[in-house]
C-alpha cells in the first residue's frame, strides 16, 4: 500500500496531526476546519465520525460528538461534505470512528466511499486486530485504506509486534492508560514507554496520541516517535475561540 499517509511519513519531519469531530461546532464547519488546518501547516487530519457512545473518549470528545449528532451529522452527511475535498486539500485525511456506524453503513460500502473521496486511512478503536484480519483486511486493501491500530503502555511486546506486522500507515501510540483528554503532562512512565517502543525498531512509523495539548507535550511525544496527534485540546480551542482562530492554535504548537 502506498498512499498520502505513507508519502507524508517519508518526509522525515515530525508529523503534526489534528483530530476534530465532524459537524462540530456547527454542522457545516467540517470542510472549513479541514482547509484552515491545511493552510495552518498541519500535516495530517483525523476527521471524527461522531458516535453516541464513544467508550474510549473523555468528556471533551463526548460532548463534541453529542453536539455534532444533535446538529444532524450522519455518515452519509459526512461523505457528502467531503465529496469535493480533494480539489484543494492534499494532506492525508483519516476518518476516526467507532465500528457500529460503519457496520450499519456496510463495511465494504463505507470503504468504497472513503476511497472515492480520497480518504487515506481509518482509525476504529473498537475493531480489534484479530477481527480485522479475519473479516475486513481484504476489503481495506482493495480500497487502498490504511487501517491504523492503537497500542498502549500495557500492550505486550508480542502484541505490539503482531500489530506492527498487520499495520499500514502508522501505529497510534496511546500515551498512557486513559481515555482521551485525561492527562495534560507526561511523566517518567510515558517517556520510558516511548523509549521502550522506539527500541523495538518496528517497521511501521509511530504517532503518539492522547495527552498532547501544547508545544511542550508535542515535543516530548515526538522525540522518539514520528509525530503526534492533538484532539481534545484542539476541540476545546474550537469551543472557546471558534473556527477563525485555528491558525493561532497551530502556530503555538510549532
Amino acid at each position: 500500500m502506498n498512499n498520502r499517509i505513507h508519502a507524508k511519513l517519508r518526509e522525515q519531519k515530525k508529523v503534526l496531526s489534528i483530530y476534530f469531530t465532524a459537524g462540530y461546532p456547527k454542522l457545516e464547519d467540517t470542510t472549513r476546519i479541514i482547509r484552515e488546518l491545511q493552510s495552518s501547516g498541519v500535516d495530517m487530519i483525523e476527521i471524527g465520525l461522531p458516535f453516541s457512545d464513544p467508550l474510549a473518549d473523555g468528556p471533551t470528545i463526548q460532548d463534541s460528538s453529542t453536539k455534532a449528532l444533535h446538529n444532524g451529522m450522519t455518515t452519509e452527511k459526512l461523505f457528502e461534505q467531503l465529496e469535493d475535498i480533494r480539489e484543494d486539500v492534499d494532506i492525508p485525511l483519516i476518518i476516526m470512528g467507532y465500528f457500529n456506524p460503519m457496520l450499519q453503513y456496510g463495511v465494504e460500502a463505507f470503504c468504497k466511499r472513503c476511497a472515492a473521496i480520497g480518504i487515506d486511512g481509518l482509525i476504529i478503536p473498537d475493531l480489534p486486530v484479530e477481527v480485522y484480519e479475519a473479516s475486513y483486511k481484504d476489503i481495506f486493501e482493495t480500497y487502498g485504506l490504511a487501517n491504523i491500530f492503537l497500542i498502549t503502555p500495557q500492550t505486550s511486546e508480542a502484541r505490539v509486534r503482531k500489530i506492527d506486522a498487520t499495520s499500514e500507515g502508522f501505529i497510534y501510540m496511546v500515551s498512557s492508560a486513559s481515555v482521551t483528554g485525561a492527562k495534560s503532562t507526561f511523566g517518567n512512565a510515558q517517556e520510558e514507554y516511548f523509549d521502550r517502543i522506539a527500541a523495538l525498531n518496528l517497521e511501521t512509523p509511530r504517532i503518539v496520541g492522547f495527552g498532547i495539548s501544547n508545544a511542550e507535550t508535542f515535543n516530548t511525544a515526538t522525540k522518539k516517535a514520528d509525530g503526534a496527534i492533538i484532539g481534545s485540546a484542539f476541540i476545546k480551542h474550537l469551543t472557546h475561540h471558534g473556527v477563525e482562530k485555528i491558525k493561532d492554535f497551530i502556530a503555538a504548537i510549532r
Partner: protein
Amino acid sequence: MSYHVDQNGYYGNFGGAFIPEMLYPNVEELRTNYLQIMNDPSFKKDFDQLLKDYVGRPTPLYFAKRLSEKYGTRIYFKREDLNHTGAHKVNNTIGQILLARKLGKKRIIAETGAGQHGVATATVCALMGMQCVVYMGEIDIARQAPNVARMKMLGAEVRPALSGSRTLKDATNEAIRDWINNPLDTHYIIGSAIGPHPYPDMVTRFQSVISEEIRKQLLEKEGRDYPDHVVACIGGGSNAAGSYYHFLDDTRVNIIAVEAAGKGIDSGESAATSALGREGIIHGCKTLLMQTDDGQITEPYSISAGLDYPGVGPMHAHLYASKRGEFISVTDDDAMNAGLELTRLEGIIPAIETAHALAVPQQRPFKKDEVVVINLSGRGDKDLNTYIDHFNL
C-alpha cells in the same frame, strides 16, 4: 445447534470482544483465566460456601397456588428475591469478587441500573474489604434512592453517569472508561450477561446456579427435572441466562424471554430490543441493539431501571435469532398490574423488572397441566415509591 459460547466467544453470530486496545490486557487476562479459576475445586468450595451461608441458597422453588388457580396452570416461582440483598445479582458478584481476588485485583468497579447489581457489588466489596466504585445514571439515582443509600452505607462510592440518557447504558460507558483509566489494579464486575467475551459466559455460569437448583427442586416436587416453560425478564439478561442455562439444550423446555415494552413497542418509548433492534455493537459485543439507521445507539425507555437497556446479551440475541426462545414484551402498565396482582394473591412484592415476567400468564395462555417456572428475580422494596405513585396507594 449450540446455544453455548464457542471457542471464539460467539453465540452463533453474536458476541465476540469489540474492545479498544486499552482494554485488551484486562479482558485477555480474564479470558485466559476464568474457566480455569472457576473450575478450581478450592474456588468452587469458597463460592458454594458463600452462596449457602451468606446468600442463603438454595432459594426456594415455590408453587404459587392462588396464581396457578387464577391462570389455570401450574406456576412455580424461583425465589431469587429471597437472596441476601434482594435479587439474583449477588450470585454473580460473589463469583466475580472471588475471581478478582485470585487475579490480585484491589479495586472493584461496577455499573448499575436499578441499583440491585450496585448493592450486590457494594455488599461483596464490604465482605472482602475491597474498594468499590459504582457508576449509576443520574436518572436512576433519582428513581432508585433506597439502593443508592444502601450502597453508600456499604462503603461504596456512587458516581453519577451524566452523559446520554443518564441510565444503565451510560453508567456502563462510564465504568468502561474507568477501567481504561485504571488498567492494573481494577476488576470490572459487569452485572449482566453483556460486554465483551468472556463476560456474557462468565456471568451466565455464575448465575446458572438458578437453573441447576430448579432442576433438583422440580424433581422433588413434580417428579421430573424440567419445566414445560421457563420464564424470565430480560434487560441485559443475567437472571434469564441463569434460569435458562441448564435447559438450553433440552428442547422439551420452552424458553420465554420477557422484554420491557415501556409505553408500547411503537410508542418510541420502549426497551423491547428483539422487536426494535438490529445486529450491532454495544459495550464490546455484537448483539441485537436498538439503534438509528445510522448506527447511533437509541435511548431506551422502561419504567423499570433494570430493563432500561438498548441491547440484550449475545446469548439471548442468539436464542431470538435461532427461534430457540419465545420473546414477549410487556408494557409498563401491564407489568405494574402484574406486580400488584402478585402482591395481593401471593403476598410477595416483586421488583418492577420481575413484574414484567409475571405479566406473561395474562398475555399467553398455558395449558392446565403444564409446569411454568417464573424466575422471581428480585424483591420490590426498592420500587415502593414507583408502586405508590402508580397506584395512588
